[in-house]
């Protein structure tokens, strides 16, 4: 099965020029986005997840940010080098975005209807009348009751969950090929979050878009993602299918993330927390950025940056622990529990306990959602 690559990000480097110097926010990010899939990007604040996606939309502030090198290939075009005018044709049409805070991402002085019809009139040359019809359809699609009345209302007349639905309706107006959702449910309650996630999955099936989903909630990731990329210190440190990342993670940072969440079975034991603080990207450390916080740190981590090691066809991790010469290490209990849990649920060994030096027989097949 050959899956079409809809977006390729190649060796992306982005810096911000600040008073205290050059902040190297993104340091060599590579990933592909396939048609119809949901790729989740996780990582702590400052790891570069939002900067990566904003660069795809070319929404980074012009006065202090710079794409130092790299390519963002979409439809054979390099978005990183596109002129503003050409980018405007893509933004909101082929690629659109849902922001974190539905309270601030709508224009408070414009009626909802006009905000939805704006991209339709601009990108698809629709007449006002047709655009309005389409806006009504969209509002129905995202589950807003009484769209005929709602279309003439202002954002303040909507609740948080309803506003996020409106934002989604705007993002979907032109049937985009890629939808970037930057923490779309973080500001919402769990019950509303569940509704919005279901809505997004539903819509994805209907219009077959690819979604890049940014979040730091691993529960949400498990719910929506086909594949997961874990970012740390401006780089992707591990990427794989959702099953691979959740049941057989290989990078010690991913181990830390997974161990620090209580699941329903976590009893009295102390919660694991990753010691220390994220790296200072003004002066990125030599070697592995995670090394100072890594309990399994080796000498080489401090000297040389780890390359990506292949775990399976779909699963890569950048840690020296996967090098054939690395000593075997014992992953934390929470990770081992997950490996055996996976074994129990599927009857498939999720790639052996410990580290198999890159030849593990991991079932790389992607189950349909």
């Amino acid at each position, binding site marked *: 099965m050959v899956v079409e690559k809809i977006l390729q990000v190649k060796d992306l480097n982005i810096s911000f020029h600040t008073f205290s110097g050059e902040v190297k926010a993104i340091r060599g990010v590579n990933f592909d986005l396939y048609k119809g899939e949901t790729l989740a990007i996780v990582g*702590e*604040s400052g790891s570069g997840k939002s900067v990566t996606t904003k660069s795809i939309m070319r929404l980074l502030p012009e006065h202090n940010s710079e794409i130092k090198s790299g390519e963002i290939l979409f439809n054979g075009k390099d978005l990183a080098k596109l002129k503003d005018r050409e980018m405007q044709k893509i933004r909101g049409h082929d690629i659109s975005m849902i922001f974190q805070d539905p309270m601030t991402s709508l224009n408070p002085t414009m009626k909802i209807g006009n905000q939805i019809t704006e991209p339709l009139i601009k990108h698809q040359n629709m007449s006002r009348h047709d655009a309005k019809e389409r806006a009504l359809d969209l509002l129905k699609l995202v589950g807003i009751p009484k769209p005929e009345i709602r279309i003439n209302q202002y954002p303040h007349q909507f609740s*948080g969950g309803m506003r996020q639905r409106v934002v989604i309706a705007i993002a979907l107006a032109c049937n985009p090929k890629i939808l970037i959702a930057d923490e779309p449910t973080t500001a919402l*309650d*769990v*019950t*509303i*979050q*569940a509704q919005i*996630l*279901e809505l997004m999955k539903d819509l994805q099936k209907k219009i077959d878009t690819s979604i890049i989903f940014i979040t*730091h*909630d*691993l*529960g*949400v*990731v*498990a*719910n929506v*993602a086909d594949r997961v990329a874990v970012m740390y210190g401006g780089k992707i440190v591990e990427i794989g299918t*959702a*099953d691979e990342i*959740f*049941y057989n993670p290989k990078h010690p940072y991913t181990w*830390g*993330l*997974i161990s*620090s*969440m*209580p*699941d*329903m079975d*976590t009893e009295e034991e*102390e*919660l*694991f*927390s*990753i010691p220390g*603080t994220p790296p200072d990207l003004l002066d990125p450390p030599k070697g592995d950025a995670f090394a100072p916080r890594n309990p399994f740190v080796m000498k080489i981590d401090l000297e040389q940056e780890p390359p990506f090691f292949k775990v399976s066809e779909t699963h890569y991790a950048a840690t020296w622990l996967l090098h054939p010469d690395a000593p075997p290490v014992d992953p934390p209990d929470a990770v081992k529990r997950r490996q055996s849990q*996976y074994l129990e*649920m*599927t009857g498939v060994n999720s790639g052996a306990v410990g580290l198999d030096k890159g030849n593990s027989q991991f079932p790389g097949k992607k*189950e349909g*959602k």
Partner: protein
Amino acid sequence: MAERKKLLEIKNLKQYFNEGRPNEVKAVDDVSFDIYQGEVMGLVGESGCGKSTTGRTIIRLYDATGGEVLYDGINVHGNKSKKQLKAFNRKMQMIFQDPYASLNPRLKIADVIAEGIDIHGLAKSKQERMERVYELLETVGLNKEHANRYPHEFSGGQRQRIGIARALAVEPEFIIADEPISALDVSIQAQVVNLMKKLQKDKGLTYLFIAHDLSMVKYISDRIGVMYFGRMVELASADDLYRNPLHPYTQSLLSAIPAPDPISERTRKRKSYDPASHNYGDNESVEFREVTPGHFVLCSEKEFKQYQAQSK
């Protein structure tokens, strides 16, 4: 268990805003529960359900519309001299949700933390005051050098630690933590929760832990209360609540939490809650009833019997 001392008794607490006007809001409507000494009581519910208002009313940031809050048998609300109020304020402290908004940006950390010490005259000399501040900073995992900095120089997790240090400064017995970790990253959340748990053990504190992240609440709490539209709909021990949720709202809330588990997520069925589904008759009295020992549910007589049968 039954012999444990009740530290706090909340009886029919009501907090109405815009009372008597057409836009009256019953933010907290007849809520009663007890908090025992040394326990962590969790309070969950969606935004607008009144959980924060409950916390703020308990500590008298709002004056209650009705009902009583008894702390060690003494009513918190009601007429009090300044002196009495001050004594009471020392026993009860609060940690706020937003570590960015809850620290005065113009005060140095030492002064933020020592404000309570100054007000209550807990330090006899300048030196003692600073020593106390250093000690508190260490307790929450920061160090001495941080005392002379300003809030903007700290990350969210560090600020929340400062908020905790400030609350601890007056040696309280009871702390209300209003969504203390919601604004923090996952890895930092674990640090703060561990810290709070450790402090509780070391100092014998009692917490009211308000949050909407249910897995974290389950982890830290002994008992959990679920609120919906200003009312407490279910109250039980943490394990009981998760294993045997009785009220349909609690069930829907639990079914909405995404678990970090892709396989179970694929097959998950969500329940939605419709308040109309109860079909209460006019003469049915809907009350907070004890279904099994320690497990309370807001229900009618009929539902009560049904829940009891279920729980057997």
